[in-house]
């Protein structure tokens, strides 16, 4: 665990702030999603309270702090529940595509041969499609197959889009890692293939996966919203979905009703920004070519004539070797 956290502690100014801001934003959305039932004043598909209908397209004000939209839904409640939908779908799709993509990538990279060729061909074919087009096709197919479970079918159609990304990265890193001496050493001590894949390759090839994961999550939010906007995602009675609300708000904008589109749109932008910031921050810390290590400032003690002073300096040399040396500096050599 300590080893896992090490890169985070070593981030420098910008990367650290980027990641911190991202984490705060995403954390807020997670809190909102979990406690949606307590935060939202109304249900996401509630159109009346005590038998009284909400006023259609009522502007923000008391009772409806973000107003009411053209379907008599309370916008604030829709935005809150929308966070739950978005996070549910994205989490599910990321986990599924991560597991499938990483396992397939590892297998292909290690086993090679015709299995590898077939899967690489398939994945490349999938990768060649624009991701939105692929998601549209699959959500169209899946919504026919799985009636009534909008969230799962949306998550599955996003999964299909993202599997090739993990697959490619993991397969390529596995291809180079399997030639490494430590893999041969594992064979030499008699490790079976599954041990080599699980204990020797897995831990060394998944290093870039968290970065792709968070960046894909941001991408998935916008793809999900795009699906909803096109009316292919989750139906309004199943769950609240920002993209759908945006598409409904399209006509309102012309007539000066800004609040129906503004708030779902803002929610999408914020969450995507938050996730992207985390991804970029992770990239800066995990990617050795971008990473800048923090150098501890060397504090020299005040100059005392004719005295030998030991200066402890934390010298971080490079990626591989990092250790603290104690540097004994002759006082005569220390220039103020």
């Amino acid at each position, binding site marked *: 665990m300590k*080893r896992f956290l090490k890169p985070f502690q070593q981030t420098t100014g910008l990367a650290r702030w980027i990641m911190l801001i991202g984490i705060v934003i995403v954390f807020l959305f997670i809190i909102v999603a979990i406690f949606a039932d307590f935060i939202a004043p109304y249900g996401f598909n509630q159109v009346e309270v005590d038998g009284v209908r909400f006023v259609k397209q009522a502007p923000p004000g008391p009772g409806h702090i973000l107003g009411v939209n053209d379907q008599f839904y309370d916008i604030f409640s829709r935005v809150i529940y929308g966070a739950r939908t978005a996070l549910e779908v994205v989490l599910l799709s990321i986990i599924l595509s991560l597991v499938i993509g990483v396992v397939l990538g590892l297998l292909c990279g290690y086993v090679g041969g015709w299995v590898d060729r077939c899967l690489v061909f398939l994945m490349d074919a999938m990768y060649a499609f624009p991701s939105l087009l692929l998601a549209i096709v699959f959500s169209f197919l899946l919504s026919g197959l799985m009636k009534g479970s909008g969230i799962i079918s949306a998550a599955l159609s996003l999964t299909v889009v993202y599997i090739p990304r993990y697959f490619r990265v993991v397969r390529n890193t596995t291809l180079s890692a399997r030639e*490494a*001496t*430590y893999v*041969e*050493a*594992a*064979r*030499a*001590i*008699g*490790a*079976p293939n599954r*041990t080599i894949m699980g*204990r*020797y390759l897995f*831990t*060394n090839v998944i290093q870039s996966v968290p970065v792709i994961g968070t960046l894909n999550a941001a991408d998935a939010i916008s793809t999900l919203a795009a699906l909803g906007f096109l009316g292919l995602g989750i139906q309004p009675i199943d769950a609240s979905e920002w993209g759908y609300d945006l598409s409904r708000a399209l006509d309102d904008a012309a007539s000066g009703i800004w609040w129906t589109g503004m708030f779902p749109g803002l929610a999408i932008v914020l969450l995507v920004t938050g996730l992207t910031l985390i991804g970029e921050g992770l990239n800066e810390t995990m990617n050795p070519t971008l990473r800048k290590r923090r150098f501890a400032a060397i504090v020299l003690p005040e100059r005392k004539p004719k005295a030998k002073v030991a200066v402890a300096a934390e010298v971080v040399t490079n990626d*591989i*070797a*990092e*250790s603290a040396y104690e540097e004994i500096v002759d006082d005569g050599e220390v220039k103020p």
Partner: protein
Amino acid sequence: MSETVTVPEAPTAGKADVILDVDHLQVHFKLRGAGLSRILGREGGIVKAVDDVTIALKRGEVFGLVGESGSGKTTLGRAVLGLVPITGGLIRHQSLDGGAPVDIASLKGKKLRKHRQKLQMVFQDPHAALNPAMTIETQVGHPLVIHGRAKGAELKAKVKSALEHVGLAPAEQFMSKYPSDLSGGQKQRAVIARAIILEPEVLVADEPVSMLDMSVRAKILQLMLDLKQYLQLTYIYITHDLATAKFFCDRVAIMYLGKIVEVGPTAEIFAEPRHPYTQALLKAIPDVDPSKMVPRDLPRGEIPDAARPPRGCSFHPRCPLARAECGWEPRDLKAMVDEHWTRVSVEQFEKEQALVGNLKELNTDKLKVKLEPAHGGSVDELWTMFENIRTENPEEPLWRGVTRMEKVKDGVVIEFAKPAEIALHPVGNADVSCVLY
């Protein structure tokens, strides 16, 4: 040992102290052709990384495999552990437990993995041989876990003892560390600890000190000698460094292009090297004596292409003592003409090249070639050119292998001597494969 494969008794089975009997071992790799030929389905060549090698390894000895890069010594070492596909021959392992000898070359899958408990390897690059994502404790103990031989407190105790045996003491200080926290020498000690924790019988050490600092080398070698005493190990020590081989080995085999050219007791080989290649290698050892600073007759040129090794003795194109029957062939003539051109003026080169063309007809296995003048040159000109090359350096060993050079109507015919059968045969206390003895 009911699972092991029994093999026919070796002819050398009478010697009870032979632990590993490598018998006519071949490791050939198929080359994949380049782009176009692969599309057209043409086969690439074959690299004979290990070609017909026979060694009998005695129990408790340190056997050195010495050779240049590309001589096949590492491949031979890896073949002993079954880490490379073996294309021919046998590797009989007579285990200490007294069972029937096991042929490693024919073991596969689970049986091979199980058998590797008795044969372990130390790798050249300690920085790459350890899994960067595992603590030292986990990786040194992993062989025991894989073979289900220890767990829990027992495992920890064994790891501790192995680490202390290789000089990583106090062990607790190293157990929770990752490889990146250790120095090169410490990593190599950890690699050795991982290899000895299974208590193997044979340890293949593939250039174990070549990546280490000079100051650490001697310590690691001494450690390996101590471990040999303690664990009754038999070593195969692979190296290109003759100095360490002289210090470390009981017997050495000199390898060249996949074949053993000379094998014998270390003292004998170093005192009286017989094969010209061994002599050349020994001359290349740096010496502190300033009068011997520049060795004058190092072998010429580079180690040849392993995909097309020279005919006869593989060393003949570089050998200063080569004779007629060493296996001269048309390719050598081309190399010689190329070399001749490096010494002549530009005008002469252009003239001569226009005369002989691209020398494609020399790219053959035949003993007799006919060269025709290209671009309208005359046979006489071609003949004079070869005569000149010959008189320029009549001592060139190639000419010893040319039995006939004759001017015919439309070209020049050059015929080479028939190569002799060259195999390892006893000379003194050693075995040498050279026509000189």
